[in-house]
């Protein structure tokens, strides 16, 4: 046995004896974990959900809405269409290619918005409603295990990949060890400043015919604004419908027609 072999054997035994320390996940395993999270929320066909949004701000009355979220994951398309209260009905967002369009039937105009757009003025962003693309957009690093209430989670630090435009370039994510569902995420600005915290306390799944597997969704998301500390947003996904949508739904013309 050469000296080199002896040393590596010693190192190995030290590593094995050094108590029940959680082993860091390999990069490949982390990417796989993100890909799993993405894949579980994706549907092969179309996706429609009814959501409820509630925004709380300091010194203001709560501001609530209901909206339909439409997704065609195969083409990366997304539409958010507000339905309640009455004054908000017909307003919407439409994502086509890399453009996020906002439409207001009161003025009949389309405006291009950025990834940083606060959806309807709340603490939510476009990506919170869209198909999950974590593996595609971020490079993960492992930060150990953490307890969150009764759950044990992997804690990952995600950094945005070059040339990808996201609302927050740095994300810390707590992923439940048992179910692989996201429990918590902290969104940071490039400067390292914490901008927003999100909690995902409940996950549900629904069987999709087109995918031939379950589609997962967070039933409730709570966003806490870390800049304006008094502001927070709750999103409830009330129901999900996976039937095919109209072919021309993700067009400006369709959204315009809804308010004519």
């Amino acid at each position, binding site marked *: 046995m050469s000296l080199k072999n002896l040393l590596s054997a010693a190192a190995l035994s030290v590593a094995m004896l050094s108590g029940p320390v959680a082993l860091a996940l390999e990069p490949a395993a982390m990417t796989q974990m993100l890909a799993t999270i993405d894949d579980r929320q994706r549907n092969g066909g179309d996706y*429609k959900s*009814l959501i*409820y949004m*509630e*925004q709380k701000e300091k010194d*203001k*009355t*709560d*501001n*609530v809405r*209901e909206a*339909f979220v439409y997704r065609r994951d195969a083409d990366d398309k997304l539409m958010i269409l507000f*339905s*309640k*209260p*009455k*004054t*908000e*009905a*017909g307003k919407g967002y439409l994502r*086509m*290619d890399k*453009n996020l369009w906002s439409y*207001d*039937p*009161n*003025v*009949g*105009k389309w405006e*291009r918005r950025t990834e940083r757009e606060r959806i*309807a*003025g709340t603490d939510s962003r476009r990506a919170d409603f869209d198909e999950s693309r974590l593996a595609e957009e971020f490079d993960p690093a492992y930060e150990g295990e953490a307890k*969150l*209430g*009764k759950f044990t989670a992997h804690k990952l630090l995600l950094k945005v990949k070059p040339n990808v435009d996201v609302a927050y370039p740095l994300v810390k994510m707590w992923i439940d060890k048992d*179910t692989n*569902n996201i*429990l*918590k995420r902290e969104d940071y600005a490039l400067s390292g400043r914490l901008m927003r915290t999100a*909690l995902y*306390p*409940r*996950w*549900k*799944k*629904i*069987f999709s015919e087109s995918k031939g597997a379950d589609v997962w*969704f967070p*039933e409730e998301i*709570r966003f*806490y604004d870390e800049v304006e500390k008094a502001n*927070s947003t709750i999103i*409830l996904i009330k*129901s*999900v*419908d996976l039937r095919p949508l109209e072919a021309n739904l993700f067009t*400006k013309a369709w959204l315009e027609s*809804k*308010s*004519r």
Partner: protein
Amino acid sequence: MGQLRLLMQVAFRNLFTSKINILIGGIIFFGTLLVVVGGALLDSMDSAMSRSIIGSVAGHLQVYSDDSKDELSLYGGMSGEPDLAVLDDFSRIKPVLEKHPNVKTVVPMGTSGALITSGNTVDLTLARLRDLYKKRAEEGESPALRANLDSVKSHVRQMVSLMEEQRNKSRELLSSAAVDPLEVEALARARTDAFWDTFEQDPFASLEFLENRIAPQLPDGDLLDMRYVGTDLDSFQRTFDRMEIVDGQPVPQGKRGMLLSKFYYENFLKLKTALRLDNIKQERDLNQKRIDTDPQLQRWVKENQTQPREILFQLDPIKTGQAVERLQKVLGSKEASLEKLLSEFLTTTDDNFDTRYQQFYAELAPLLELYRMRMGDNLTITAFTRTGYVQSINVKIYGTYQFKGLEKSAMAGVINLMDLMSFRELYGYLSPDRKAEIAELQKNSGLKAVDRANAEEALFGEESGNTLVAEATPGLIEDSKAFEGALGSLRRDDLASRVYSQQEIEQGVALSAAIILKDPEQLQQTMEELKQASTAAGLKLRVVSWQQAAGLIGQFVLMAKLVLYFAVFIIFIVALVIINNAMMMATLQRVREVGTMRAIGAQRSFILSMVLVETVLLGFVFGVGGALLGSGIMSALGSAGIPAGNEALYFFFSGPRLYPTLSAGNLIAAFVIVLLVSAISTLYPAFLATRVSPLQAMQTDE
């Protein structure tokens, strides 16, 4: 009596005998001059500023809700718009205020601001094209519409080729890694004949390709910050006599609409190249600056030379051809590229500037849209309402206006006027119906409140009952009926043409109200009485003078006055000390004289009076001189006027020139101050003089 004559004789005799007296006289002379001129200027500026503020938006008094967190600040405060509580119903307040005999008119108001976003030039042109195709889909094609479609389409095609040109140019500068292949591919596709030949087969799909893949390749349009005052426009125009329409027309009675401030229109909505030319002209004509010596002017010329894109993108192929032709003629050039021609044309020097300026407006301007917005266009304004919901409305621009004398004031110039109905919509106000609707939605959500501090424990703890795996009931979401009753194009047209009655305008939300008084002299008293009247009527109102209502500007006026008065005060303290010292020296010089007088029987009181009368006479003679010169200067300034060299001065002068006036009050004040200062500063030396004894005097050396 005889003694006084004697004293006067002595004083006159001594007036010009010593150098020290001349020095003291000089100080008094300039002191008086300063008080007369400074005081008169200050008073004139004060009254000019008051006129500006009262006559533009403030009125003599302003009332607003006493529940407001911030103080009213009509011209905006340090941290944006002040937080004011709303006056629920202006029609309830108006009669209470109008009952006061000194109140002439009451005008409802509200100030607010919004950020106006707009797409880039390609976005805007594509939006126009989309509207044309929508029109065709609804009404069918007419020859006029067809021609219009073709013209806009060729314009878009021209833009695409310009974009490709620019991309090729920047490719030489950028590394290949910075070029997104998808963008290149999209641009290449939009350049092909095949794309344009098949455009009509599915125009909306073609448009979406251009909107999503081509337009984003240009930078976004400018963000525009806009402040506006929502008001009863008719009543506003009748009440504020300094307001005048410049372009377009007033908003017809009872209609929705806006009047942009001329200053805002010129400085923020004009084509940048034209604005820069205007600025250079103004600096050259008004301030006698020259391009070859002034770096700011050089910068403007440079920007005009290097930034022709705004013009290039604006012109469709036909107009581009015309522009090339005209510029070739003007420059005597054979160059075919409009970009190069423009760059050459806009390379202005002190020698050719005036010609080029005139040529720009004569030859190029008719081909261009000089302003981002024309009279009669709709402006889309999006605002965050007080309720948290985002509200957008279209408001028609009827014209531009200015406040006479405040044409150049950047402070008054950013105030745009809007009808009260549009203002209310942007302001947002939760009617009881809406409140109930929101409460119902909130109740149905079944959400339980979670305290932020221990949200994690509440949501993830053992007691939370939350699980990470659950089967969802497959739901069928019915969305087809959800938008019935949604607002739409019909409502938009309806709003634009609707005429509101005076009652509708007055019944509703306002943030403040301006009051014009019959007799402004009784401002303080009326203010107190209105406060009492509103309390008696159960209205919680704050009544403030225009100076308070003008916020920062009002405080600035006050500050400016205080600073000037303080400066005058300091100058007189200094004068006091100098005169005092000089008199001390003068007295010490005269120890022998005083001693001799005392020896031959002069009483101490005589000596005291002698010194005092001398100084007062000195003050009087030189004071009159200073006052005369001051009056002369003021009358010269009063007829010639003092030009306002910059925009801030424009406001303080309430116009391009200040014509100061001199009041008797200024003269009397100057006199009183001068005589008092000289008398006070002589007291101690005079006292010392009385202490001189003949013995002491005789012992003093020469």
